[in-house]
């Protein structure tokens, strides 16, 4: 900084001098950021890549190179098979539904005249709330005997619902599910909470996208014979929202891959009934941090980074091609 001001104080001697000064200032301004990017983002990626080929553990000074053994385990052990199943089930469920609900809510909210702000505010609340706290609230809601959900379901017993809905009939006789303790439901409960938390964010992005759709386009479409609301949506709204959709899908995917808080809050040991919710982030935490099996954790980290990079590269490719769906 001192050097910077002293060079500035000198009398200027032409264009070249000014250019050199600017160059030097530019490097002084970017250097902290570049250094931190290197140390905090790039070096760890390299460290993870290297450690994934070792049996390193904290507290042990020596380690052995184990080649692809960690990766080999990733694709042969049944625990890791469950990890991939849980992660992909979650992502494949949460992303389409939260994007769909976000779009649906945005379209509905945009088409009404009253109470817009109220709905918008309510749907956005879960985005702001501490997920861990809300997970605990959901845990109470899902409590098998005193939770609000099973209590509400019990109200349906003895009504017509019991006859037309097998789930209800079953629940009234044998008791309603224990949700978090049942391996058939656990992953879906987690997914539901993921959708509950994330769709408001997508809605807000879609609402912003919708304001960018030109009115004239709708008139033009109507001239061309697009009479029904569905036709107008298919011909005008959806293509115009293409870039928003690409972004919303990518960011939802990346967030969905990173699910952790709910899983850790509900099942601090072991990732759910029968490992049915053993998602990647939890696996990294359990193997790498809790069990000090750094090699295993590092290989999961590398897989994770590969998934995220592929996703983002697909997104950038779509954006550059300016793909409009329709």
């Amino acid at each position, binding site marked *: 900084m001192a050097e910077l001001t002293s060079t500035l104080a000198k009398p200027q001697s032409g264009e070249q001098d000014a250019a050199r000064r600017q160059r030097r200032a530019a490097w002084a301004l970017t250097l902290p950021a570049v250094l*931190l990017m290197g140390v905090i983002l790039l070096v760890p990626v390299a460290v993870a890549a290297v450690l994934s080929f070792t049996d390193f553990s904290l507290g042990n000074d020596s380690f052995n190179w184990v080649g692809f053994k960690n990766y080999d385990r990733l694709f042969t052990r049944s625990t890791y098979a469950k990890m991939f199943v849980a992660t992909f089930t979650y992502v494949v469920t949460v992303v389409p539904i939260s994007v769909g609900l976000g779009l649906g809510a945005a379209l509905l909210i945009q088409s009404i005249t009253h109470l817009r702000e109220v*709905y918008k505010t309510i749907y956005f609340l879960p985005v702001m709330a501490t997920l861990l706290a809300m997970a605990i609230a959901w845990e109470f809601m899902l409590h098998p005997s*005193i939770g609000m959900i099973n209590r509400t379901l019990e109200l349906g017993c003895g009504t017509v619902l019991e006859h037309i809905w097998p789930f209800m009939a079953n629940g009234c006789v044998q008791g309603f599910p224990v949700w978090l303790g049942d391996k058939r439901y656990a992953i879906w409960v987690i997914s539901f909470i993921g959708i509950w938390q994330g769709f408001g964010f997508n809605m807000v992005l879609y609402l912003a996208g919708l304001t960018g759709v030109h009115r004239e386009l709708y008139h033009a479409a109507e001239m061309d014979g697009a009479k029904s609301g569905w036709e107008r949506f298919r011909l005008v709204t959806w293509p115009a929202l293409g870039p928003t959709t690409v972004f919303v899908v990518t960011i939802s995917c990346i967030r969905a891959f990173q699910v*952790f808080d709910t899983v850790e809050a509900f099942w601090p040991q072991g990732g759910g009934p029968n490992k049915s919710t053993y998602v990647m982030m939890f696996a990294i935490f359990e193997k790498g941090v809790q069990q000090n099996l750094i090699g295993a954790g590092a290989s999961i980290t590398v897989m994770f980074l590969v998934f995220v990079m592929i996703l983002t590269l697909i997104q950038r490719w779509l954006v550059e091609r300016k793909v409009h769906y329709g």
Partner: protein
Amino acid sequence: MTHDWWKHLILTLGALIVIAPFYMMVSYSFKSPGEIDRGEGGFFGRQELMVDERCVQLRDPNRDEITTARTRFPNQTDRQIHTAMVAEATVDCSMRPVVFNYSKAFTEAPLLRYLLNGVIVTASIFFIQVLVAVPAAYALAKLKFWGREAVFSLVLFCLLIPVHAIALPLYIMLAKLGLTNTYAALVVPWTISVFGIFLMRQFFMTVPDDLIDAARMDGMGEFAIVWRVMLPTAIPALLAFAIFSIVAHWNDYFWPRIVVTGNRDLFTPPLGLREFKGDGDGSFFGPMMATATVIVMPLIVAFLLAQKRFIEGITLSGMK
């Protein structure tokens, strides 16, 4: 409105589902354990006086206390004095459920300390992020220098790396440096916000060059230009980034969970709540939900007060 009724029906049903856990959280934080167990009392509970059994047990008089209390209860046997003193304790330990829940939230665990930690960590992260990102963003947007393209490509590449994903190697590096269980461990990985650089750069690109040239004519150095000329023009972008950053780090649970183990003095609010849950038995639903409410509320209240700003902030940061 009349022909929109079905839209309102759908939106209202959705809103009820979205609000349900918030409703339950706040409602349980008002109710007594009995009301929670039996599911009665509406939203606020009946707020009948309840007795804090633990408080009564703690005040169970011992022999010495009974002896000293003899002067207050003349002509009574020790057993009678004991009963009278327990009755006194019971009266003193009676309180409304809402008072019980919230006072327990703050006394069972050092919740104030957790909240303070949350503020310290969130504020330091944001402050350092701005300090690092704004100058870099200005240089990338407005200065010509050798290597600019390379630095910008680096920024674009780093946008691909979610910090949570590389938590394990970061944790190992911090552990090797002996930094786990410190404030530094909570803050350091977040000091560089690539996204912040990107966002501010996009914003600075729209600032006219004339403004900067004029400042240079006035003899300002590049450093002064960053903070005295560029930053004031970028307040909207900075606010958006502030909201983005603060929301993310106040609510973050994964990273603190990894680098803070056991040392309660460093717990952030989500860690404190987690600890509370681990310790609690069934009767502590009320105080636990009070803790959850206290932790969630600051952001929710800020959001309700400045909704437009928050939504704009999140969308601005979303749309890049």
